[in-house]
């Protein structure tokens, strides 16, 4: 191994001059002693005159440098921002000569690319989230479409037999009533009329018929809801004042509201909107019925309407029992109900959502247990 070649200071100065990194030498009073070509170019880029070259050095570097020159610690880095550029200074102490030099590294481009990368990542994340949402919506709407077809098919299949049963039940009621008329008439022998077996059978027939009628009505009600669900395209598209729709729905739910619930109307100035009025009335009705059912005793339903750009908003708030968090996320799911057998079909709100979506609108719900629930319907004017 040969001896290391010691460069002359002249050679070192040449290297420093040719080095592509800006290099600056200064003494412990902060006076600039030397600057290489790259450093002068940096000053030019930053539009700092040569006489003010010390401005470029980061604050407090001398204080940090002092103990290093005294033999405590080694070279260190400082980063500062000047004229929109991020500069990294690596301070190298020259202990023997009580002076120091700094190599400058311009981190601006690096930082900018990092920032840009972060922005891209954020954009990607957002796009991904949007895609996931769109996918969920697509699945949901496809689910609804196929459910619609299924429901239409079922409703159609059940229609004939239930029609038959319903008619038979009515005929049976009439027949039993005729039978009773006969038993009560003068021609009927009293021992037949008062025969315990006859009396018992007549009683059973009447009870069962009454029961069947209730059961039939309930089935037909469900079928009617299913039909509404499956046949949402019916009816005419018109320009209407939706206040009329809300008011007519209020009339229909009057029996549930009566003197128990105060209805506060805060109607704004709305343009007429292009919609299927029957369907929207169904939505208002559904939410109003729910609101009135959520209020156990006395309370208030507030209906507020207002315009926002090309959209109209309807909020229906109740002071009812509210909806718990885990129920809130499911209330628009078809078949979800908390109302118990025979009261709700669990289709109401899913139908509402379908109607609003078909109108290119949105339906949202907010609720607090014990405080009440607010439904917000947003519809485009066109």
């Amino acid at each position, binding site marked *: 191994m040969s001896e290391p070649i010691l460069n002359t200071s002249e050679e070192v100065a040449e290297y420093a001059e040719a080095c592509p990194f800006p290099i600056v030498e200064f003494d412990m009073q902060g006076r600039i002693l030397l600057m290489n070509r790259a450093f002068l170019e940096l000053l030019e880029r930053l539009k700092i005159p040569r006489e003010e070259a010390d401005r470029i050095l980061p604050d407090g570097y001398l204080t940090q440098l002092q103990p290093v020159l005294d033999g405590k610690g080694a070279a260190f880095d400082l980063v500062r921002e000047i004229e929109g550029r991020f500069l990294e200074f690596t301070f190298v102490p020259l202990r023997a000569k009580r002076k120091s030099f700094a190599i400058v590294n311009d981190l601006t481009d690096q930082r900018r690319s990092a920032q840009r990368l972060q922005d891209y990542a954020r954009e990607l994340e957002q796009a991904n989230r949007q895609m996931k949402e769109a996918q969920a919506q697509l699945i949901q709407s496809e689910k609804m479409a196929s459910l619609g077809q299924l429901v*239409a098919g079922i*409703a*159609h299949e059940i*229609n*004939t*037999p*239930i*029609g*038959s049963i*319903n*008619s*038979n039940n*009515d*005929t049976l009621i*009439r*027949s039993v009533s*005729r039978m009773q008329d006969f038993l009560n008439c003068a021609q009927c022998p009293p021992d037949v009329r008062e025969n315990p077996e006859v009396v018992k059978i007549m009683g059973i027939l009447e009870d069962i018929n009454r029961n069947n009628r209730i059961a039939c009505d309930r089935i*037909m009600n469900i*079928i009617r809801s299913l*039909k509404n669900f499956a*046949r949402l395209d019916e009816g005419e598209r018109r320009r209407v004042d939706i206040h009329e729709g809300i008011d007519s729905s209020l009339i229909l739910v009057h029996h549930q509201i009566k003197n128990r619930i105060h209805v506060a109307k805060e109607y704004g100035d709305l343009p007429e909107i292009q919609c299927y009025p029957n369907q929207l009335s169904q939505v208002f009705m559904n939410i109003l019925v729910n609101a009135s059912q959520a209020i156990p005793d006395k309370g208030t339903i507030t209906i507020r309407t207002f315009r926002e750009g090309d959209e109209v908003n309807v909020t229906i708030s109740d002071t009812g029992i509210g909806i718990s968090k885990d129920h809130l996320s499911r209330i628009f799911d078809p078949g979800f109900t908390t109302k118990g057998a025979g009261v709700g079909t669990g289709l109401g709100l899913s139908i509402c959502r379908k109607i609003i979506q078909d109108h290119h609108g949105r339906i949202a719900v907010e609720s607090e247990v014990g405080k009440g629930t607010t439904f917000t319907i947003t519809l485009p004017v066109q």
Partner: protein
Amino acid sequence: MPASDPITILLVDDEEMVLTSIRSFLAIETDYRVSTFTSPVKALQALDQLNVDLVVSDYLMPEMDGITFLGKVKEKLPHVPRILLTGYADKENAIKAINDVGLYQYIEKPWNNDDLKLIIRNGLEKTILLKRLEEKIREVERAQNELTEVQKQILRIFA
């Protein structure tokens, strides 16, 4: 209409259960004679012998749909009221048929018995009124002929 000549209703539905339901209801509530067919083709064949006053038909049937069937009934018996019994999905077709085939009415399934009875009775009243009108027209024509005859005689006397 004389009591000796009962009113005949022709009822066609491919579902036996519907026929039984309506037949039973009409049996307890009316004096109509009810002829039922599950096949519209067979119903058409029997039409001539039945002396039908009113026809009720289902819409969706495998052999022939109710509108076609009632159209054929119209060709044979133009004055007989025709009622279509429809499932909910056929409503638009039914409304169209009221115009195209000249239906008297349509009833949606599941039907209400009282509505059915009322629609049948109103339909029959229409036939009865039409029949009476025809009779009156014939009477007037007869009277007119008699008058013309008398007029001729008078003219002959004065001529």
